[in-house]
């Protein structure tokens, strides 16, 4: 069992969680390390580290561009394992990789997941690995104690039971159709999806895609176990570059407070 299961308990009390995402290597690997420290200091409960891919088809323009900036800076998978290992030395916060299957396949499944275990990475999100193809990595990831996170989308209604019953770590509930990125409004009936998910699994369910403002975070956290924030953080990095640390801290702090204020 990974550290993820403890994410909803802090200081012995149940709480809603804030998951924070950034792209490793944007603008550089050293900056990423500092930014992750800020995320932890600001109260992020789980850190999602994006391993950049040349063609991230599930991402909107903000994270796409972060991927391309990181690759242009020369970051590679080995450096990101090193980064995760260093963060693990400093903190017990759960760490989850987010990347595309080809990078993992090319690294070699055995090598990739054993390095995840060595570095203390608890799980992996692979947006191009649907339930139907899960066997591709499930057994090897399991052998090294890495949770393969399942995603559920607004179109998943008739698939929730089978997916949730096998889910590990947490459920990533995609708020709306399309790709990652800030959204003005979220129209999906997430409450009924979330209720349905809870019928079939006890693991946490976090809502992501499009959440950027504290009001949205309160609303989404009220109907789930917490929220995932990505593009809004990456946008701060895009705007402030090397100086983004303090902006990240302030922003994540406010989002964390919002999430905590949501009624259970």
């Amino acid at each position, binding site marked *: 069992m990974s550290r993820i299961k403890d994410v909803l308990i802090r200081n012995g009390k149940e709480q809603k969680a804030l998951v924070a995402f950034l792209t490793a290597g944007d603008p550089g690997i050293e900056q990423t390390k500092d930014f992750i420290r800020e995320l932890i200091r600001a109260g992020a409960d789980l850190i999602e580290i994006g391993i950049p*891919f*040349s*063609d991230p*088809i*599930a991402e*909107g*323009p903000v994270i*796409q561009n972060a991927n*391309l900036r990181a*690759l242009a800076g020369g970051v*590679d*998978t080995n450096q990101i394992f090193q980064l995760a290992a260093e963060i693990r030395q400093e903190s017990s916060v759960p760490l989850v990789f987010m990347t595309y*299957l*080809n*990078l*993992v*396949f*090319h*690294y070699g499944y055995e090598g990739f997941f054993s390095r995840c275990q060595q570095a203390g990475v608890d799980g992996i999100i692979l*947006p*191009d*690995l*649907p*339930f*139907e*193809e899960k*066997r591709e990595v499930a057994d090897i990831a399991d052998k090294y104690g890495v949770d393969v996170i*399942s*995603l*559920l*989308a*607004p*179109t*998943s209604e*008739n*698939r929730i039971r089978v*997916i949730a019953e096998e889910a590990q770590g947490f459920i990533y509930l*995609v708020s709306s*159709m*399309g*790709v990652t990125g800030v959204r003005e409004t979220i129209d999906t009936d997430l409450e009924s999806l979330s209720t349905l998910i809870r019928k079939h699994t006890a693991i946490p369910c976090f809502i992501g895609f499009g959440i950027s403002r504290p009001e949205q975070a309160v609303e989404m956290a009220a109907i789930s176990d917490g929220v995932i924030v990505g593009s809004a953080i990456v946008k701060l990095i895009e705007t402030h570059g090397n100086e983004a640390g303090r902006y990240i801290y302030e922003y994540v702090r406010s989002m964390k407070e919002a999430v905590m204020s949501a009624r259970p």
Partner: protein
Amino acid sequence: MSKGRYGIHGGQYIPETLMNEIIHLEECYEQCQRDEAFNRELNRLLSEYAGRPSELYFAKKMTEDLGGAKIYLKREDMNHTGSHKINNVLGQVLLAKKMGKSRVIAETGAGQHGVATATAAALLDMECEIFMGKEDTQRQALNVYRMELLGAKVHPVTTGTMTLKDAVNAAMREWASRVSDTLYVLGSVMGPHPFPLMVRDFQSIIGKEARAQILEAEGRLPDAVVACVGGGSNAMGLFYRFLKDEQVRLIGCEAAGLGVETGKHAATIAKGSLGIFHGMKSYFCQDKFGQIAPVYSISAGLDYPGIGPEHAQLHDMGRAEYVPITDEEAVAAFEYIAKTEGIIAAIESAHAVAYLMKLAPQMGKEQVIIACLSGRGDKDVAAIAKYRGVNIVE
């Protein structure tokens, strides 16, 4: 093993957001295949609108000049819209209509698939949006204008290498944001299942006709069939009906650009490796960490870093051969077939002609080759002129 496998290749590696829709698509396709009314309508469009069957033309002058095997050309360039793309698109847009969709989207490289999709959409009253790499909108400006004339909206894609692979990414993203009224009409035998199967089925009319036509003309099967390969739809369409005829060599010609050793090419079989991308497991041009490589070819239609999964399997089995053809060889073949047979072939198809020019002289006079002229080359005239340093004033 999951669905849509060709040996180890194929599969459905796509976001969860699209899974329900793709399962639905597969079911609808299976229903339509069995539906007589659907097939009647498709066949009517293929014959009355697209102009099928396309000719199997005996290239007498090339045959005499090259001094070897008898050369036949399967004239997909004579189809309505000027390429084989119309075969697949009529099938998919008709399917979209049966599914109750009101809008189709597509990616395009050279623009031929975009033009075909815009055409079918106009005919069948569908809204149509085309994603095309910005670089390709510039090298294929004529086709962009054509799509617009046909009522389609063309989106220049400015991310990544601004070519075909990025257009596919953009179309997938768009589809994920709007599946309810939209079908993504994929242009080649690639992507997640059921696209490689469906596109192959719709294109298999090329090989079906060619097989019957050559039996009629020569009383025997060909010794080799040759076609260009980007994603590989005209090649798969030609190969499919000859798969069981083991004496027939199947040869795919991929774009070697400036040469396979230069790094500026799109020769997936020659230089690629196994990977998972655009919904499928297959061969891709990529670096040691699995980042998809920027590829290059003079032909926008072959400028793709992967190959359809069924081709990947045919390569693994040794059933089909894949050969690299450089820009220079393709341009020379483009000029050769124009002067010899009076046919301006697409630069994509010229890759197949280039190999024909190497292969035919090595074969006996009693032997027969069929090459697929996948499309016509009007769109490429300016690019060829530029390559030869000729400035064409508009």
